[in-house]
């Protein structure tokens, strides 16, 4: 009886994905117990909610997800417009929408809605993908991204943009267009420099020379690289990182948790983490390759690469090779919304994998 119930519960769960995810969540708990033990209970709550969300989504067949794509996207754009008009300002950026009973950050929704929408769009025009379709797709991508950039929220706009771009990429955007766009972007970089906000420009300058303002703008980067570097090969041991324990690492339970992990577990720990992410991404790409429909393929591929983007941007910025943008370490950083969003992505992957044969039958 119980076995039957359990069997039903885990039926849509993909074993390999779940194993990797479980390990990552375990790492999150272990690191959080060192960085900020007081937050453990809340973290466990977040995980429970996120796992539930994942399980729910994993059960939905891709066709149902497809039907959600357009409404979800339109709703998201609407909310972003609302934010731009009536949003709350916090820390100098207009990102939040206060609905009276809850404050939400619509840009977070876009991380899922964007790949859904584009995958749905390409699925609909599967048989006749011409230049026009790519132009429309680009517009679908750029409207919300522009709204998020304006908030301003560089981290989220990078994530939303890449989620959409990955779909277009997997949909077969020709290489010469990609390379052409890349060249254009590179050429336009000096021009784009002027479009950036002062603080964003400052972050890039800080990356190039953090020691210029060691107690101000460079402080995050300097302290996190010190933490990582002082960790050495084997790390200082759990709970023994002086940079973490003596509070030299700012935001050490959220965006900079990797510095805590890296200081205490060293290069070896970093390697393990990189391998875990590689396995997660590998599994995701495999699911994409085996998916039944174009929609499922595109969605799975894009979601998988978003995980990569999170991990790469976060570790890159904490170790001082990318500018500081607000991107968490996937599945490890503290933050309920991000965790739920990420696990929804896992749920979608599981659903796609579960349903890889159904359509063909």
């Amino acid at each position: 009886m119980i076995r039957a119930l359990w069997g039903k519960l885990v039926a849509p769960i993909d074993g390999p994905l779940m194993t990797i995810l479980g390990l990552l969540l375990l790492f999150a708990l272990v690191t959080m117990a060192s960085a900020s033990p007081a937050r453990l209970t809340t973290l466990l709550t977040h995980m429970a909610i996120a796992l539930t969300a994942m399980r729910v989504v994993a059960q939905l067949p891709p066709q149902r997800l497809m039907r959600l794509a357009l409404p979800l996207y339109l709703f998201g754009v609407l909310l972003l417009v609302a934010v731009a008009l009536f949003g709350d300002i916090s820390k100098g950026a207009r990102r939040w929408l206060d609905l009276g009973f809850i404050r939400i950050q619509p840009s977070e929704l876009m991380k899922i809605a964007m790949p859904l929408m584009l995958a749905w769009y390409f699925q609909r025009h599967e048989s006749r993908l011409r230049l026009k379709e790519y132009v429309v797709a680009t517009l679908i991508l750029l409207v919300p991204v522009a709204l998020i950039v304006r908030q301003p929220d560089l981290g989220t706009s990078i994530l939303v943009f890449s989620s959409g771009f990955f779909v277009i990429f997997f949909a077969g955007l020709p290489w010469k267009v990609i390379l052409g766009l890349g060249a254009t972007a590179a050429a336009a970089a000096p021009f784009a420099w002027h479009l950036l906000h002062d603080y964003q420009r400052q972050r890039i300058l800080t990356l190039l020379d953090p020691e210029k303002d060691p107690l101000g703008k460079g402080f995050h980067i300097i302290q996190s690289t010190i933490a990582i570097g002082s960790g050495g090969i084997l790390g200082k041991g759990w709970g023994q990182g002086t940079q973490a324990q003596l509070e030299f690492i700012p935001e050490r339970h959220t965006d900079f948790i990797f510095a805590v992990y890296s200081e205490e577990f060293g290069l070896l720990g970093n390697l393990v983490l990189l391998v875990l992410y590689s396995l997660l991404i590998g599994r995701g790409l495999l699911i994409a390759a085996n998916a039944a429909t174009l929609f499922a393929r595109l969605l799975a591929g894009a979601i998988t690469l978003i995980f990569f983007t999170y991990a790469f941007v976060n570790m890159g910025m904490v170790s001082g090779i990318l500018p500081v943008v607000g991107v968490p370490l996937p599945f490890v950083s503290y933050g309920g919304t991000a965790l739920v969003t990420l696990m929804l992505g896992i749920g979608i992957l599981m659903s796609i994998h579960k349903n890889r044969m159904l359509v063909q039958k």
Partner: protein
Amino acid sequence: MEFKNPQEDLEQFNSRVAFAGGFVLVCFALLFARFVWLQVIQHDYYRTRADENRISLVPITPNRGLIMDRNGIVLARNYSAYTLEITPTQVRDLEATIDGLAEFIDIEPKDRKRFKKLMEESKRFESLPIRTRLTDEEVAKFIARRFRFPGVDIKARLFRQYPRGAFASHVLGYIGRVTERDMARIEQQDAEANYRGTEHFGKTGLEQHYEFELHGATGFEQVEVDSGGRPVRTLARSAPVAGNNLTLTLDVKLQEIAEQAFGDRKGALVAIEPATGGILALVSVPNYDPNLFVDGITSADWEALNNSPAKPMVNRALNGAYPPGSTFKPYMALGALTLGKRRPEQALADPGFFNFGGHTFMDDKKGGHGMVDMYKSIVQSCNTYYYVLANDMGIDNIANFMGQFGFGSRTGIDIEGESEGVLPSPAWKKKRFKKPEQQKWYAGETISVGIGQGYNAYTPIQLAQAMATLANDGVMYRPHLVRHVTDTRSGAKTPVEPQPLRTLPLKQEHIDVIKHAMVGVNKEGTGARAFAGAEYVSGGKTGTAQVYSLRGAKYNKDAVKQELRDHSLFIAFAPADAPQIALAVLVENGGFGAQAAAPIARQVFDYYLLGKLPPGAAPADEDAKEADE
């Protein structure tokens, strides 16, 4: 552009998936390379940086060395007291915090003012005293309310104390909070590390000159701190070493008698042990209370000291330059003997004046002193003898000879900021003045220089050094206040040299003539009244320095305002055959040397040679009036 069939689409998709997988691996490899760089190649650097972050060296200030007189009587010491301190960076609303503290601790407006001043001068993270010397009750009151005042704490600190108050203040000097200027001196000495945590620095006197002896070696505590700088635990500790103690050549009792002998008159006295150059007493009155400066002087006190017409902050013994008056005459006579310009028995008929270049130089005794030889010229202080002598010697000879005795150059005493004085000469005049007509030396000016007037201006310490050198038969020492420095750790005593600076090229027979004449001064001359009945043989010379040019009018003490009255001078040594003490006394606006200055010298000698205490406060000897000059 046209796209192909679904099968080709799938192949294309799979190739892109493969590409994506490769891209991911490349990026992760890049990250891994970065980790290797940070954690393996640069590991040592970052480990050091992490340690620098967490380990803070907290300095432990050493006890400042004591200052004691030659008999071990303490003149400067330290005591521990509680201070209420605020770290401004840890306090959100400074005004509100101070107001809150003022509810139960007495904080006066001057305390607030001083705190503000300290804040402007200090570094950001320092904790600064808002109140010093808390009573036990105040300490208890604060501790009970401590939780209400983050960033405020009570600390036990050592304070400098001068137990005898204003006594010998110009010798001791004082300490005050370290300023930018002091930091420059510390850097010059390469002592920044040793001065971490030190808040006070010697500002004047011995406290200034021996700052680096008195300071001691700062101890350090290695403390692990968090990012807010709050200590977490102590890792290691090295104890501080107290500063070295100074033992002075000064005799407290002698100094006391000398200071009291001045009464409320202004002036200076320097008494030197001729055989060593050790200073037995160094007086500059009025004094000031150096304790006022220790935790930052209030502006009211500072203004009172600075604006006082008596100028208590001026060290008259080192920075007052006065014409030596007749105390110059023994050296003039010695110069004449040395240069062969006079023989002792050579006499001159003194008509009571000397005509030179259309100007008449008056002797102050009407009708003159009659036949005057060298002995009589000193004993009776005959001006005419020296008018003629100065003219015969010439200004260059005078300047060269006097220069050897240290007139017009710093003595090198172990207190800083000593004045040079003026040894007049044509060369000096050329340097001193700008216009050619002012630069010219007039022969008439030499005549005034001969009796210690004119451009002559010397500090009392120079007068005393010259006297000591003469008393010591021409062997000259650098006057100094510190006899030895005691290393507090080893107990080793480092004596301050008594090595002779130089031996003047003088003939003993000439010296004896002058000494004999100076003994005559105290026996039958201008100093006789002051030294009547002395149980030892002493030599001396009175002097009067003109403050006010009389322009031919008869000097009348009562008709002249006090501050324009003549300065009274006296130089002396004793016992005559083997001098143990030589001194110079100056009483500002004291009138004749015999009248004001000589009795002070008598009291000092009486105590130093016989242990005799003066009968009450210094009486001015009114009867000596008629004797001088």
